[in-house]
């Protein structure tokens, strides 16, 4: 990462933070401990477990700090590609053990500080992610400014990432840089209805391809393998609107729509609906449906008959339609008062959540690796949240 660029970004974030201090804040985030365990399984043979723990603590009247540690443990039964790397997840390098043992472990550390003065809240977060073939350093800053008796909240965010891609099967290391900007506006319409608008822009440069995927081209009866070749620049934009309104005192509906478009010619539409309801005094149910479609990247082809300057076979760059269903239940501590073990960890302000998502992605042509058109995935989650 160029030193001059780092200094410039640090200076910018510092000024951004000071600007937050100098303006007149919303309340700080609650002091809390969160422990989450999520798992992912799909029909492509990929299994991922990603536990995370995070803590937020107010350290001064207007200052709060936070930290998070996340591990991605990827075990891919589809480790059959030419480079002995999973082509779906890019998981690589077995750490130890046999075929059933995790193929890759990623560690992510996040540290942040939030400052509130008056009605403005500003925060800065630093994220470091490391795995055997990829390193990422990220700085993120955001500020939110409320107006009109806090009925209108304007927010801005900036994220800068410096990544190093170091594939196991290549002698080189390459850089990837991402700069993202976000602006949001949240408006309370009535005492039971609010609406939010989000605009997002991201510039990605450097090595944006996948070093572990391969493209087989049949030439005169012999198959020759090539690496995918992506453009080294991508401008991405998205605009989204979300609204939530109460149906009565115990239930609400959230509706959302997002349009996305980028310089790789991918355009997508995402719509979602979320219904939340208190099933009893101590149980909240969340039921959601998300539908998504996208066009393909202009350099994507399902099959190649000759090598081209730009080539891609990754299904996420293909034309596709996705449906995702979500069911989750959130229990407060009252319900566990007579449960022997949970009673001791479910303090008065604790919440336990369990959830299951079912994800279906249908691409117009088969996946380059699994040869399936339909991807089915199950995401199971369990979370513990304690406000202290």
């Amino acid at each position, binding site marked *: 990462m160029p030193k001059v660029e780092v200094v410039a970004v640090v200076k910018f974030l510092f000024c951004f933070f000071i600007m937050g201090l100098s303006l007149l804040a919303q309340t700080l985030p609650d002091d809390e401990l969160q422990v989450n365990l999520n798992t992912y399984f799909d029909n492509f043979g990929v299994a991922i477990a990603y536990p995370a723990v995070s803590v937020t603590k107010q350290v001064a009247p207007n200052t709060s700090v936070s930290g998070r540690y996340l591990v991605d443990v990827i075990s891919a039964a589809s480790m059959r590609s030419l480079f002995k790397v999973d082509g779906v997840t890019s998981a690589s390098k077995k750490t130890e053990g046999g075929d059933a043992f995790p193929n890759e472990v990623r560690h992510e550390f996040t540290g942040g500080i939030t400052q509130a003065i008056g009605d403005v809240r500003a925060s800065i977060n630093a994220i470091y992610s490391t*795995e055997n073939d*990829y390193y990422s350093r990220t700085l993120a800053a955001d500020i939110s400014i409320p107006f009109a008796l806090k009925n209108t909240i304007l927010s801005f965010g900036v994220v800068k990432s410096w990544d190093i891609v170091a594939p196991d099967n290549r002698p080189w290391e390459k850089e990837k840089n991402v700069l993202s900007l976000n602006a949001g506006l949240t408006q309370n319409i009535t005492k039971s209805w609010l609406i939010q608008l989000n605009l997002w822009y991201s510039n990605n440069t450097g090595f944006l391809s996948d070093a572990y995927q391969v493209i087989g081209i049949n030439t005169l009866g012999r198959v020759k393998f090539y690496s995918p070749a992506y453009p080294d620049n991508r401008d991405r934009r998205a605009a989204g609107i979300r609204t939530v309104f*109460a149906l009565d005192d115990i239930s609400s509906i959230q509706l959302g729509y997002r*349009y996305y478009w980028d310089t790789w010619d991918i355009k997508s539409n995402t719509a979602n609906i979320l219904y939340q309801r208190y099933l009893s005094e101590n149980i909240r149910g969340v039921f959601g449906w998300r539908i998504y479609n*996208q066009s393909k990247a202009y350099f994507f082809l399902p099959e190649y008959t000759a090598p081209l300057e730009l080539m891609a076979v990754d299904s996420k760059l293909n034309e*596709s339609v996705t449906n995702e269903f979500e069911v989750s239940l959130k229990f407060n501590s009252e319900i566990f008062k007579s449960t022997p073990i949970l009673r001791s960890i479910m303090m008065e302000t604790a919440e336990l959540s369990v959830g299951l998502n079912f*994800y279906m992605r249908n691409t117009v042509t088969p996946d380059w690796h699994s040869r399936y058109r339909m991807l089915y995935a199950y995401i199971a989650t369990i*979370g513990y949240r304690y406000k202290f």
Partner: protein
Amino acid sequence: MKAKTELHHHVINVMEKTGMKTKRLLLFFIILFAASITGCATVQPWEKGLLGDPIMLIDSNPLEKGLIEHHIDYREGSVGGTGAQSGGCGCG
């Protein structure tokens, strides 16, 4: 007629090149948003009880939501526009 068609294509090209599509989309959202908030009464602090309830929060637990949506980044070609932000990673 041919000249008219060419002009039509030319206008479309110019619009696309100058980001007119983007501007139109932004305009649409701004108008939609303005229409939504026009005429809405100011919600007084003592009337915000329901707005503060977990069922009314757009992201009641951003950390949990981010983790649940973690897989989407690697299975779809688009991200952003939902208010969430995250760092880079090359994981599957």
